[in-house]
């Protein structure tokens, strides 16, 4: 009888231990509120050889934000209804300020893993808005970016300007609905670096065709505006050929 009782207690104890383990397993480390700075870090020199043309940028005013960082592998609004971290503001930055790290905004949210991002270029289309709406501080105003520069090939050269609108495709989505962004934020002692090369955004442009169009029209400056083939090419550069990188830099505790 005593032995049976001991056996019962031992069995019960084993299962209680297992239950205790499961309780511990079910309780995740608590997430903590975090807040840290995000800065933009333009890459390159502002010059590049693109499709046989030497291209130099003289101006790249870019509206960036808001940004949403998600725990899910996709930042799509249907898969990431709630962000882990976010920058809710829009900043107007100089994409050619290579020696500076301009403040993009303050990131607010929770500690945890980030696997994707979704963001806008100053023009958002929230579920509560009837149409895409630019932030007040966008270049133009009303555009996502203003780019100016010149292209040279052999003895040929021409200047160009671009007013670029990066617009969400559908209401409730971001202009860049999902992007790779991997980080594990454990505290507020981080700095988020948003890196991009603005000359990379021009990789899809057909400079030969632009030069031919200028020669045919007699104009001296090629103006790229929304709705044109060249505007679509810049959007492809921004989204597909030279998308922004997100790097979380841990900082030492002060």
């Amino acid at each position, binding site marked *: 009888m005593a032995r049976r009782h001991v056996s019962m207690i031992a069995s*019960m104890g084993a299962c209680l231990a*297992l239950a205790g383990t499961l309780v511990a397993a079910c309780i995740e480390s608590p997430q903590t509120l975090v807040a840290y700075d995000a800065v933009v870090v333009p890459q390159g020199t502002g010059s590049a050889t693109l499709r046989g043309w030497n291209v130099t940028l003289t101006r790249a005013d870019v509206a960036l934000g808001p940004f949403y960082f998600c725990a899910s592998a996709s930042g799509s609004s249907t898969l990431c209804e709630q962000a882990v971290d976010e920058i809710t503001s829009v900043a107007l930055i100089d994409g050619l300020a290579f020696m500076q790290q301009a403040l993009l905004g303050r990131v607010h949210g929770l500690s945890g893993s980030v696997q994707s991002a979704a963001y806008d270029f100053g023009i958002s289309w929230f579920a509560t808005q009837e149409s895409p709406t630019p932030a007040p501080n966008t270049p133009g105003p009303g555009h996502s970016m203003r780019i100016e520069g010149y292209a040279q090939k052999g003895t040929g050269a021409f200047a160009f300007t671009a007013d670029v609108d990066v617009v969400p495709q559908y209401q409730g989505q971001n202009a860049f609905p999902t992007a790779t962004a991997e980080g594990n934020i454990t505290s507020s002692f981080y700095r988020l670096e948003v890196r991009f090369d603005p000359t990379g955004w021009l990789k899809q442009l057909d400079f030969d065709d632009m030069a031919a169009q200028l020669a045919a029209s007699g104009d001296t400056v090629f103006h790229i505006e929304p709705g044109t083939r*060249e505007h679509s090419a810049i959007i492809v550069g921004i989204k597909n*050929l030279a998308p922004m990188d997100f790097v979380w830099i841990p900082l030492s505790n002060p």
Partner: protein
Amino acid sequence: MHPWISFGYRFQIHNKMKPCRVAPVALAAPALFALLLAFAPACEGTGKGTVQIFVVPEDTITQGLDPGTDMESVQDGWTIRYSRFLVAIGNFRATRTDTQATIGDSTVFILDLRNAPTSGYVTNTFTNVDAVRWDKFGFDMPNAKPSNQGLAPTRQEDVDFMIQNGFSVYFEGSGQKDDTTITFKWGFAAGTSFSDCASPDGLAGFAVPASGTIQIKPTIHGDHEFFDNVTQGVEITTRLAQWLEICDADQNGDLTIAELKACDVTVALPESPYDLTSVRDEDGDGLITVFDYVVSEMRSIGHYQGDGDCPTRLPLP
């Protein structure tokens, strides 16, 4: 039952948690017993069930797409029909996050989806599976390899064709609008794994009923190359096919892979209405062409239980 169907010899279960016997102590320690009951899944019962994997084609593969104004139709007036649609698919796998137990079968099949059986291809049957929720389900659509197998009524010559070319997907068909018909015969080595599958109502994986059978249906979609974006999650999109005619550079009524690679997206798929986010430079030519767009769409055709999504997609060799 077809002899290719997996019973046992390819069936693997790795349950890392042993069952726990509970002593009858309810009267002596009711509170502790209640605690044990609360964690009954850990000291789980003996319920077992069966999992059957059916690979099914979406209606767009077997019946095509029609022009129209409703969401599922091609909005710009094109009629799409497939005459041949082959895929490599397999490595079906499921995991329980709570115990890390897995079931799976690494076999990859070559299947003719245009001529699929009415209820689809039964590729696997897993028996004696714990009757719980298996919250992680995934599968592969890799580039075809010599070890891959056919399932009737897929013809052996189709299996050989896919393996010789290393395609993950191949299809032939046509688009027709008014007096214009564009034919196409395209194969792609767009090997992709699809993971974290969830049913259309958002439930992750599947639940095995005790003493019953759950039917799992990886579903291959046939309309993604006509989307206006690369969808993730809910398919919020419009179907358009005018690019078929735009890219037919020699205007001979047959659109080739070479023409796709030369077709500029800024002309054929302009930013409005298209959003090319997630389209990659698949052929490494430094530009985004319609070929890159179609390949990227081919990496998204694997779905789950109809319109359920498998949002974690990774390239496979």
